[in-house]
């Protein structure tokens, strides 16, 4: 969907003449009140669920949760996935041509924030004729967008479902992002962000960025259970640069895969959006004051072994909602998988969301 009118950004800049790609699942009802927006995190896209014709392996990134008969049941809800601006899956992003220079944006793509994404999503929903969403659902960075929806457009959603998320990044979180960014920026193939003109891809930087990220998505226990100290070979090879441990092999594989499809400038932009998200910031650090404008009902979920966005971070949000006398439920799922748990199909987690969405369906008579 193309937008001719510029999108004003939090930075003061504007995104002009932009396109957002989106997918929908299910049917919008006559009352137009059964829509659920699913917000994506760092490396995902508008392709939330289902497969493309003739591509059986093209499942959407949250296919285990979204679909007919699944916890977010697309026979009841009209589900919308939107690729955020600045991303690299079809919406206007840094690899696309800047209309003011006729060159790819590259490093000149404006810095976008969670709030900017939410505003861009809201505009797309305007076009679809959806004034109020039954729910906004997101995990991790997607959860931040769901929270931001409750603050920027408090009357446009009935329910906010925020999973494995945080009210802002800790210094440790920002530190991991910075290591990833430095890996990309210092890759000689990055060329200050204008590598498209050079016909290069800063794959080395992207690989390291993804490896770092991946470590933070897994728990110590799950990594131990999956890889332990297992070796690729029979015994130590007494090398310093070859792959010897299974975990090394896994991380390199993940890094390679990622560097084949992900845009380096997008990685920088999205990690920066994560760094900047801080709704309490405009209220002197008072999260309770920040949520004073929220009106919707909330469901928060965290996972006990998630050390990237730990349960304590979700409890901060719960407290702010309680202080404002808002309707909030919170589940702390005792899952071993770390941050990644939000994408897996833990039965307690999915049973809870299934019930929650069943309640919402009853509310909007979907």
């Amino acid at each position, binding site marked *: 969907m193309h937008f001719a009118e510029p999108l004003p950004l939090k930075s003061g800049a504007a995104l002009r003449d932009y396109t957002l790609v989106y997918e929908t699942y299910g049917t919008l009802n006559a009352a137009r009140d059964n829509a659920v927006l699913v917000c994506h995190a760092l490396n995902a896209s508008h392709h939330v669920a289902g497969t493309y014709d003739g591509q059986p392996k093209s499942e959407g990134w949250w296919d285990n949760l979204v679909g007919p008969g699944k916890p977010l049941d697309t026979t009841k809800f009209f589900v919308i996935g939107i690729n955020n601006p600045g991303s690299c899956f079809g919406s206007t992003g840094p690899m696309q041509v800047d209309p003011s220079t006729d060159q790819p944006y590259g490093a000149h793509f404006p810095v976008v924030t969670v709030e900017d994404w939410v505003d861009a999503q809201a505009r797309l929903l305007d076009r679809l004729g959806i004034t109020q969403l039954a729910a906004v659902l997101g995990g991790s960075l997607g959860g931040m967008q769901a929270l931001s929806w409750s603050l920027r457009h408090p009357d446009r959603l009935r329910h906010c479902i925020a999973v494995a998320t945080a009210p802002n990044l800790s210094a440790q979180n920002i530190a991991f992002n910075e290591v990833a960014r430095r890996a990309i920026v210092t890759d000689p193939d990055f060329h200050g962000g204008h590598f498209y003109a050079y016909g290069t891809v800063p794959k080395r930087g992207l690989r390291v960025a993804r490896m770092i990220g991946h470590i933070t998505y897994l728990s110590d226990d799950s990594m131990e259970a999956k890889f332990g100290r297992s070796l690729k070979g029979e015994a130590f090879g007494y090398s310093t640069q070859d792959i010897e441990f299974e975990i090394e092999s896994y991380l390199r594989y993940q890094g390679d895969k990622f560097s084949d499809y992900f845009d380096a400038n997008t990685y920088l932009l999205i990690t920066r959006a994560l760094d900047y998200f801080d709704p309490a910031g405009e209220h002197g650090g008072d999260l309770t004051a920040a949520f004073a404008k929220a009106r919707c009902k909330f469901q928060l979920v965290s996972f006990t072994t998630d050390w990237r966005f730990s349960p304590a971070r979700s409890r901060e949000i*719960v407290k702010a909602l*309680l*202080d404002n*006398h808002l309707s909030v439920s919170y589940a702390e799922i005792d899952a071993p998988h770390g941050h990644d748990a939000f994408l897996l199909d833990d039965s307690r987690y999915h049973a*809870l969301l299934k*019930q929650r969405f069943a309640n919402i369906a009853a509310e909007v008579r979907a």
Partner: protein
Amino acid sequence: MSDRKDIELIADLVPPGSRVLDLGCGTGELLAHLRDTRQCTGYGIEIDDANVLACTQRGVDVIQLNLEDGLAIFEDQSFDVVLQLSTLQHLRNTERMLQETARVGRVGIVSFPNFAHWPNRLQIAAGRMPVTRVLPYQWYDTPNIRVGTFKDFEVLAGKNGLRVREAFGIQGGRVVRTFPNLLASVAVFKFDRG
């Protein structure tokens, strides 16, 4: 505290329209009852996954927390009523939880099995730990790690400067106001900070 009659007797202590916090809310039965019959709002606190799901099924807001970790996320006097029904006896730090209940709620309501109910006394007199309908466990597998009596609670409330506004026993779905320490298997107290 799953007996329907007991729940109604305790619900009668909650003023209509109250903002309620139910510590150890189980399946959310009481909160749903208070919402449906007394226009109350509020939240349950529960640790068990199945109970959290059951609360969601009832449409009751539930927050999954371990009560042993305290009530730090709740501000002072932020609820009209804090309920703690058949929960106190499972907690290691019973006295602190009682103090927290009185800190967070303008009114606290607790219930617990009264160990001094006469059949328990008989079994103790016979030399065995009591096993009854309200205390169905053996001494070695009971989750009731704090076993107190109606009278014991009066002492603990006094020690913590709590003013008992109402106190009665429940036996067989009826309120017991005469010799509750002897004649009731469940003790109920409503109190505030005086």
